[in-house]
């Protein structure tokens, strides 16, 4: 089972992103589950959202305490909250930031990347400069960086899953996908093994 934890702030769309990610994973023939941090979301407050993926039905119904992948929608959360709590050794870190990832000084054995999802979102008319809606852009970046899910599945899930500006959201995801490099040296737990990765088409 692969577990992804998303750290954002209320209003950034983390909960919807976790759900779109689950839909995209399911489109590829895997089982998926997503849920918010079981909390009262308020605009600007730290919010967690979770996605699980597996090649068999998912029975575990608890919060995610030891994720394989971290997605951080707001880099200020790195200083104000413990986003790394329980991150598995070798787990990946993807941050929405216009700064180079080196500036965060993440430990070397955790593959990490940054992407200016906010800039991309604003260029595609998603939210405003002060409150950009970064959830779809970061998903495009995550698809490339993690290799966990294909961009086509992400784009299809975005078109089905966002309430408005479907094309703009998809374009933002695609742009973020193109500017990010795949993570090198992913440990086994962060990806489906070759045997698990059959080609599946969903009708």
């Amino acid at each position, binding site marked *: 089972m692969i577990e992804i934890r998303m750290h954002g702030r209320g209003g950034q769309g983390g909960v919807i992103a976790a*759900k779109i990610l*689950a*839909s995209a994973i399911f489109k590829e*023939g895997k089982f998926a589950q997503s849920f*918010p941090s*079981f909390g009262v979301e308020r605009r600007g407050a730290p919010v967690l959202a979770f996605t699980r993926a597996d090649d068999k039905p998912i*029975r575990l*119904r608890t919060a995610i305490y030891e994720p394989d992948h971290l997605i951080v929608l707001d880099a200020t959360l790195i200083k104000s909250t413990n986003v790394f709590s329980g991150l598995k050794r070798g787990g990946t870190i993807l941050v929405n930031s216009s700064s180079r990832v080196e500036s965060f000084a993440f430990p070397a054995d955790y593959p990490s990347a940054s992407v200016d999802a906010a800039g991309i979102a604003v260029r595609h008319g998603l939210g405003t400069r002060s409150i950009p809606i970064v959830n779809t852009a970061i998903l495009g970046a995550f698809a490339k960086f993690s290799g966990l899910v294909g961009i086509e599945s992400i784009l299809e899930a975005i078109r089905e899953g966002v309430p408005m500006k479907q094309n703009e959201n998809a374009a933002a995801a695609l742009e973020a996908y193109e500017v990010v490099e795949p993570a090198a040296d992913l440990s086994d737990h962060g990806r489906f093994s070759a045997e698990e990765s059959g080609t*599946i088409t969903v009708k």
Partner: protein
Amino acid sequence: MKGRNGMSMRNAGLLHPSIEKVVVIEGTHAASYAVKLARVQVIAAYPITPQTSVVEKLSEIVSDGELDAKFIKVESEHSAMACCIGSSISGARAFTATSSQGLALMHELLHWAAGSRLPIVMVNVNRAMAPPWSIYVDHNDSLSQRDTGWLQFYAESNQEVTDTVLQAYRIAETVSLPVMINLDAFVLSHTSEPVALPKQELVDEFLPPRKAPFKVDASDPRAFGALIGPEAYMEMRYKLYQAMEDARRVIREVDRDFAAKFGRSYGGLVEEYMTEDAETVLITSATAVSTARIAVDELRSMGFPVGLMKIRAFRPFPVDEIRELAKRVRKIGVMDRSVSFGATGIIYQETKAVLYNAPDRPAVFGFIAGLGGRDITPETIKEIFSYLLNREEPVSEAVWVGLKTAAADRPEPPFPENSAAMKSSEGV
């Protein structure tokens, strides 16, 4: 769907000719789509977290013209149930959804719906009672409505929510009693996962339009809800009692019919997991069952003969199933996500009660866990099994699992010194 995971998808019931499509949706919407498929005619509800999205989605479905129903906005849950009662008396198929304090506010009318023998179906998103305010799961809200005459189901997955709503109307309209379907706040209500939605025409075959035996009709006037004297009240109560008894048979039959048509079965009132040769069985309900399956698998791989019984129907209570289980096992643990103050966990009480007059009475242990949304993890379940495996007789009627109090203050220390086999669970 095809490919290497086709087998898993088939095993998970996601490849079946009855399926229209498989969607990744949250538990609340799993209820909404089932209400649409059931061709419900009247929906009346008042919003309350975490139930809100059940009726939000339904209001969209009705306003988009996808369901020919009357959607009635009301000023309270009491009024919502009053609307359901009024429309159900006139012969309509009615639905409402609520949670926690909203359910408590409905209490008077829950009696009224059951006493009037109306087949209303309600989704209750299980949320802890305040104060202190909580929006998180436990089962005290619905279990407090135990004696109102409503059937009660508890769901383990979003698929079970959809399927149980469809089954519930068939059951309710067969026995003329209302049905409450409970799903855990957030752990199910706001969790998205794949749900197979069946084809409408197959649902229509399974669940034909309601035929009310009596209804408000100006051309055939009758009195409803009249005052009744001591000469007849008791007989009407006996009929209600018998209807609930009869519901056991109906629940099993409807589940079998459902399985024949849609390829999924939930075992009727209970579902057993790994109980065939089990010596120690945990009884629990709702989403904790799903997580407990993982713990049972782990313990089985370590050689412990443990199993699980899921209480799907709490009312009527699965008396026969539990007595049957008791013949085969040495120890039963009951994990409640509820507490009756001055007594114990609620399913624990009921389990002990049905065994007292049974010839086979294994030791029965009561555990309370997961109140107010405290996470129930595989470790929680393993802690309980550790307790059960290391004891022959209960020494406490209510062992609270996962309390943050110092070990010395616990009603019963959960781990004996000799629990070497369960070391991984110690100190939780």
